[in-house]
């Protein structure tokens, strides 16, 4: 039985086809999900892709949070469904309170697109178990509002509980607090990150294949859960 991973398309989603491709390259069955439908079509995991959902009107991710599909995603994520939020998807997860904190405008005020070095700080989540702790990876980063912020208490809590999943290496590209590039929830099934692992799954089109591990991790997690 193949493992089905859904990718939600919101109006303004841009990297949805890339996320579907990454699922396929990793060996899963990609399933396209539509923002107006509450059904997740029996998928085993969900990816919220990058883009500018609803035109980033109001705040990034603020409107997507209220879309019909997110009702189900939030409910099932709380019950353990693996959910990965990439870039705009990370913003949606924060707006939905599945993850703490928020993403703000890059401190240098410019959109930035570059190949970003990262350190894997937690290799125990549903989406990172194919990495090793401390492993260095390079995947594309591209955002205008990628500065991760939270109050000091929350940041201390994330650190203490090992919930920082990724950190920026070689210079902080957007002013994120404590170089945080990605975090997870307490249960480790929900992960949000600003960099784009779906753009690093083939050497032809990406700088590396370092991003593939996120998708293979989820597949392994799901097979083990059966």
């Amino acid at each position, binding site marked *: 039985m193949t493992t089905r991973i859904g990718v939600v398309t919101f109006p303004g989603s841009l990297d949805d086809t890339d996320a579907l491709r990454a699922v396929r390259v990793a060996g899963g069955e990609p399933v396209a999900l539509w923002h107006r439908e509450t059904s997740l079509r029996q998928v085993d995991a969900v990816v919220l892709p990058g883009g500018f959902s609803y035109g980033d009107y109001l705040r990034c991710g603020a409107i997507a949070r209220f879309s019909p599909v997110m009702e189900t995603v939030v409910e099932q994520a709380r019950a353990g469904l693996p959910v990965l939020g990439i870039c705009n998807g990370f913003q949606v997860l924060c707006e939905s309170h599945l993850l703490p904190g928020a993403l703000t405008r890059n401190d240098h005020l410019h*959109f930035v697109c570059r190949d970003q070095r990262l350190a894997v700080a937690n290799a125990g989540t549903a989406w990172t178990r194919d990495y090793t702790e401390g492993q260095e990876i390079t995947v594309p980063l591209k955002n205008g509002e990628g500065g991760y912020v939270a109050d000091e208490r929350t940041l201390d809590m994330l650190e203490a509980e090992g919930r920082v999943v990724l950190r920026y290496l070689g210079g902080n590209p957007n002013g994120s607090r404590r170089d945080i590039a990605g975090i997870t929830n307490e249960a480790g099934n929900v992960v949000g990150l600003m960099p784009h692992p779906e753009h690093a799954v083939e050497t032809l089109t990406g700088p590396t294949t370092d991003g593939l591990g996120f998708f293979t991790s989820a597949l392994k997690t799901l097979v083990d859960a059966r």
Partner: protein
Amino acid sequence: MTLDTVKHATDTPQTAQPWAELGLKEDEYARIREILGRRPTGAELAMYSVMWSEHCSYKSSKVHLKQFGEKAPESDALLVGIGENAGVVDVGQGYAVTFKVESHNHPSYIEPYQGAATGIGGIVRDILAMGARPVAVMDPLRFGAADHPDTRRVLPGVVAGIGGYGNCLGLPNIGGEVVFDSCYQGNPLVNALCVGVMKHEDIHLAQASGTGNKVILYGARTGGDGIGGVSVLASETFDADDSAGASANRPAVQVGDPFQEKLLIECTLEIFREHLVAGIQDLGGAGLSCATSELASAGSGGMRVELDTVPLRDATLSPEEILMSESQERMCAVVEPGNVARFLEICEKWDVTATVIGEVTEGDRLEIFWHGEQIVDVPPRSVAHEGPTYHRPYARPDWQDALQADDAARLPRPATGDELRAQVLTLVGSPNQAAKSWITDQYDRYVLGNTVLAQPEDGGMIRVDEESNLGVAVATDGNGRYAKLDPYTGAQLALAESYRNVAATGATPLAVTDCLNFGSPEDPGAMWQFAEACRGLADACQVLGTPVTGGNVSLYNQTGDTAIHPTPVVGVLGVIDDVTRRTPMAFSQAGQLLYLLGDTGDELGGSAWSQAVHDHLGGLPPAVDLERERLLAQILVSASRDGMIDAAHDLSDGGFVQALAESCLRGGNGARIVVPDDLDPFVFLFSESAGRALVAVPRSEELRFTDMCGARGLPATRVGVVDGDAIDVQGQFSLPLAELRAAHEATLPGLFA
């Protein structure tokens, strides 16, 4: 105020009309009266004024543009030629590619962010209207002097606008150019190119046929922005006192909403998939005037439009304003009655507003009504396709001889290794030759996941088919300095470089698009430059076998009496059967051998060296040998396909040493270079002779590669080896990569960050 209906116009022939304010000339107004047999209504006058503008009608340029059709080389690849929204090229396996470059120069000077943003939006809709999914964009840009205070206003705004719009649309930005020259101070050039992919059977054309078919306007609501953009803005010279002109013209610049455009793209592609449209046109310059008249003109019937059904952002707009508005993110489709319900359903799915505003009629008139009263009754061809044609006088400027006589050979040249070294650093750190990553890192090059090559590579490359690995490559080039010295040769050099860039990636060049940026057509000198450039480009396309498929002309790039350098920007599209065989520019393997392909002469006129070191422009540009360019391209493509080279970089502005520096820095490897016996070290390093490329050859392939070059008659000179962490020119100087990188990469952040 009474509505100026057709009847009212007939009854009041003497009413004074604001034709001059709308940008029409007296004889043009007289001709409109002659066509209609009465004075035009206000709405008709509005339509003619925008459609007969230089920007829409090409009235000064079309007598010269004709050559692109007349001299077009035979090409099996061309599926749709000049005249449609964009040309379409067959790239094999049932795929067709459409591409086009357009200008958004004037708006981008007035309001850099929105001007550049809507430039992207407009070209993307042109590509979409052909039936294609847009897959990539590139932006050839020209700004004033890098250290001029106004460049600090214009450049960051333009870059943010391109990024803000393009990134939000989800289209990778895969290349383009950034050039600084004080001649563009008051007239920056913001050109935008878009590439789209479709299957042959999906090609759509802009025509309204089939009596009873419905005309549907969909996308954004119509507002008061961009009124007169094409006529009063794009088709006039700016006043010398540009600050006053800038504020007065600001409302003529449109405001873009990329989110709306993204929805429009996905919605339109879904509509295409279900074969629901008979004809389609995007709304760009001249808005509804253009879309309705062009659709009706190209079709077999007439058209009737109820203008008061158009959804508005501002309910107070007059019918004239609605017809002239250039509000963005709108499309107009002709749909059979049976398909209308499904069409509207798909629009609803994507939250896109769609309204039936009219229908195709029998007969041959375009009739527009406002709350039941007729305000337009015209033959659509007279608006869209039979505008005025001017044979503007042109003459070689009297300063041309003196400029060409001011030979760059008189400039002092570096005499020692140390002087050469210093000038290499000056060159690679000069704004035009410096790294552009501060700009291009603000654009998303990864989205859609098919970007095989992107800037700073010679050409951008996109995978078209994930199974077969079919792909296309695109490059744009233009050198206003060369064209100023000799517009005929300059246009050919622009084509040659773009063609060479595409070949350097391993793709076979197929077709051309051009954006011709010039001064005022009312100046005989500027008109001569334009005529010469068109002649040069058409002649060269004939030799290279690459037809011009479409493009755009931007005239009046002039402030007071001062025109920009004539700047023909040429885009070339190529096809590659297997993108995994692409040739990148980086020297990534130490030990590989460096070969210089082609002949090097003492050609420094208009060169980057003469600008960066001496701030000089004079003499003649490098000579063009198109047969040599063809041979070089064939060698580069064969070598890529057969795995004989691992890297290639074309030689153009900055010459050998610029290409060497870029390939070394990209790969993180140095090189040991030996100056060929028959060449002076300075000429070897800095000359800009055309028809050359630098390639890295694995040792195991050396014999096969040199045999191939020898057999086909292409000079190939071994000039060194990839090695170490410095550029070491034996007997002359050594330059560590770290020092080179610092000089190359610090310039733009230093100026604009």
